[in-house]
């Protein structure tokens, strides 16, 4: 069984290629159904966001090339030839899958480092997989561990701290002046530019209920005010609007400042010195720079905001190393669990094999030595059981050692070969009775139990 992910993201392909492989939220159950119908696919999950489409799968040994298998699936889904995605797809296997998904969940793989939405999308992928019945032990655990690792990376490091857009910086600063909730605060949008609209939406999302819009063209002000559920003002009502507002977003196309120091000084007097936050995103500037010197007035222009955005992004990047440590730690833990999952059926198989041989030998002896008393038989049985246990013990210890993260995974194959389990998948071992002697019922029962456990565990 191998764990594999095949995907495409914003770093390997542009939108024109990515959109061909996009799997919409409603299409995910269909995609999962198609995936699990493939014989070699034991488990499957799909993570599809605007920046990536990734297919996670646990593939059995029935397939020689799992990567090829998933690439065919994706090409089929995109209804395009395989070569259309040459050089755009990436593939990780086993331990690297965990490291990759955990990084994705932490937002380390996102366009905006540490962005929070990816955590929800990973959770959605897990839920879709569970409701489609496409995941079992491995992928369930992988996605759950990814959510935990992502959350840890976000809370224990600064990768998610700091605003990463002009709108977010404006909100961050506003909350430092007025409080976490902007409820009860009034936003004045000066000019009807797209950027001021976006910024005002950010502020309104934080609870600022009242939005006033003032524009030279009154009709435009009315239109924008309707979008916000606010009220439109004529441009000559600006002094009154400045008295009422707490936050002012300016983005007019005026060639000279429209908000002057005198205007704000008068407004501050009228508003009893309440704090005023001015966000000037217009170029040329709408607000006279000297306004920033007035007490209780906080003025930010577009350069100030862009600098803060750049600073926040840089600070987040500095936290990446710490986040990577958390992710590596979680990936090692996942690997340890996965190895133990693989080791358990092998331990059972070795013990089953020895038990079957013991029972077969006992059956043969019973036919050859009919004169032994019950007491003598019990002694022979005990001796053979002790012998097989002594052989099984070091083998079990060696398998457990291999299951450790620093263990040698290749040694598992050696042990498998040494016990004649080579080349057989879990549940497929054939144990033939020596010399054609029919196995007693107990031996069959032990083998059946072993096989069942193997199926459950694998």
């Amino acid at each position, binding site marked *: 069984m191998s764990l594999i992910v095949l995907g495409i993201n914003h770093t390997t392909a542009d939108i024109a290629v990515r959109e061909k492989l996009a799997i919409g939220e409603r299409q995910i159950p269909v995609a999962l159904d198609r995936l699990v119908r493939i014989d070699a696919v034991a488990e499957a999950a799909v993570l599809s966001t605007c920046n990536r489409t990734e297919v996670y799968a646990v593939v059995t040994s029935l397939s020689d090339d799992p990567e090829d298998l998933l690439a065919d699936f994706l090409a089929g889904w995109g209804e395009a030839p395989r070569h259309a995605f040459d050089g755009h797809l990436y593939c990780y296997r086993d331990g690297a899958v965990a490291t990759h998904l955990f990084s994705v969940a932490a937002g380390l793989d996102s366009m905006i480092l540490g962005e929070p939405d990816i955590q929800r999308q990973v959770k959605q992928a897990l839920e879709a997989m569970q409701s489609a019945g496409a995941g079992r032990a491995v992928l369930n655990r992988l996605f759950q561990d990814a959510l935990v690792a992502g959350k840890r990376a976000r809370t224990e490091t600064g990768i998610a701290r700091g605003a990463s857009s002009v709108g977010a910086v404006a909100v961050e600063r506003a909350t430092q002046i007025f409080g976490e909730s902007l409820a009860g605060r009034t936003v004045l949008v000066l000019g009807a530019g797209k950027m001021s609209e976006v910024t005002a939406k950010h502020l309104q999302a934080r609870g600022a209920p009242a939005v006033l819009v003032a524009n030279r063209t009154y009709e435009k002000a009315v239109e924008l005010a309707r979008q916000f559920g606010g009220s439109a003002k004529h441009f000559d009502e600006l002094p009154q609007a400045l008295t009422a507002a707490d936050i002012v977003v300016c983005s007019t196309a005026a060639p000279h400042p429209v908000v002057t120091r005198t205007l704000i000084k008068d407004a501050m007097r009228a508003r009893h010195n*309440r704090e005023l936050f001015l966000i000037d995103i217009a170029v040329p500037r709408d607000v006279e720079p000297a306004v920033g010197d007035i007490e209780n007035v906080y003025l*930010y222009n577009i350069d100030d905001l862009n600098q803060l955005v750049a600073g926040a992004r840089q600070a987040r990047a500095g936290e990446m190393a710490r986040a990577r440590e958390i992710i590596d730690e979680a990936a090692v833990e996942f690997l340890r669990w996965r190895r133990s999952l693989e080791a358990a059926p092998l331990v059972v198989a070795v013990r089953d094999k020895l038990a079957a041989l013991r029972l077969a030998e006992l059956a043969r002896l019973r036919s050859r030595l009919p004169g032994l008393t019950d007491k003598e038989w019990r002694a022979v049985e005990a001796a053979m059981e002790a012998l097989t246990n002594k052989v099984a013990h070091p083998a079990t210890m060696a398998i457990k050692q291999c299951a450790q993260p620093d263990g040698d995974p290749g040694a598992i194959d050696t042990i498998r070969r040494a016990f004649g389990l080579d080349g057989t998948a879990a549940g497929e071992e054939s144990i033939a009775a020596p010399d054609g002697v029919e196995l007693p019922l107990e031996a069959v029962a032990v083998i059946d139990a072993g096989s069942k456990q193997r199926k459950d565990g694998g």
Partner: protein
Amino acid sequence: MAMESGFLAAAGIGYLVASASYGAHILVREPRLALCGRIAAIVGVVCHTAAIGVHCATTHHTPFTTPDETLSASAWAIVLAYLALDLFFRQPALGAVVQPIAFLCLFTGAVLHRARMAQPMQPPRDIDSGMINLHVIAILFAFGLLVLAFGCAVLYLAQHSMLKKKRSGSLFGKLPPLATIDQLAFGLVAFAFPLLTIGIIAGAIRASGGGFPHGWAVDPKILLSAVTWVVYGVYLGLHALAHWRGPRANYLLIGGLLIALATYFAPTGVHRFG
């Protein structure tokens, strides 16, 4: 005596741990650190209360008959006022400013106490009268609240400076919002001012009641206490009536506490301490 010292040492450790925890909380914003600070402050104030109780039971005097005892009692009042505030407004950043002040008061009190114990003991004068107790208790709690207002002013000015300079330093986003901290400071002074007034009036009544030399009213300590009262009165008046807020109002709060401290340490010919 040993029991009182033990409780005081435990209180000191509690205040120190609270200072460190609140300070670390500001830097790393880990909620468990704020909880640790709160628990340490509670343990500290409980031990401090026990020490005061033991002191009263063994000496049969109030716990503010000497300058060192008054400093220790000030620490107790500051932490008690902070914890009371913390019940309604969770402001661990304020804890990071006021807990170290409380610890310093307790520590300085302990150092002064040790120095005093090396000198021959003087029997306390007539200091346990009802009016003196009212004077000291009212001023102690007013001082506790004014230290909190001072803490608010420090936080306000730090936040204001970061916002004006458009910086995103390591403290940004970890201090309370300006509007919140300004209202909190005003509320604290509004509570402290009547207590300060009662304390000063009680002291004046006691002084005019006899036993004080003529001209006690122009003693430097008495005069400075009047200046302190005026500064906070001006702050309240300007804030409420002239809408004074922002850095100027907060500088006034810082100045007010400095004058209050100067009052405490000012030389005096008539007051008990100094």
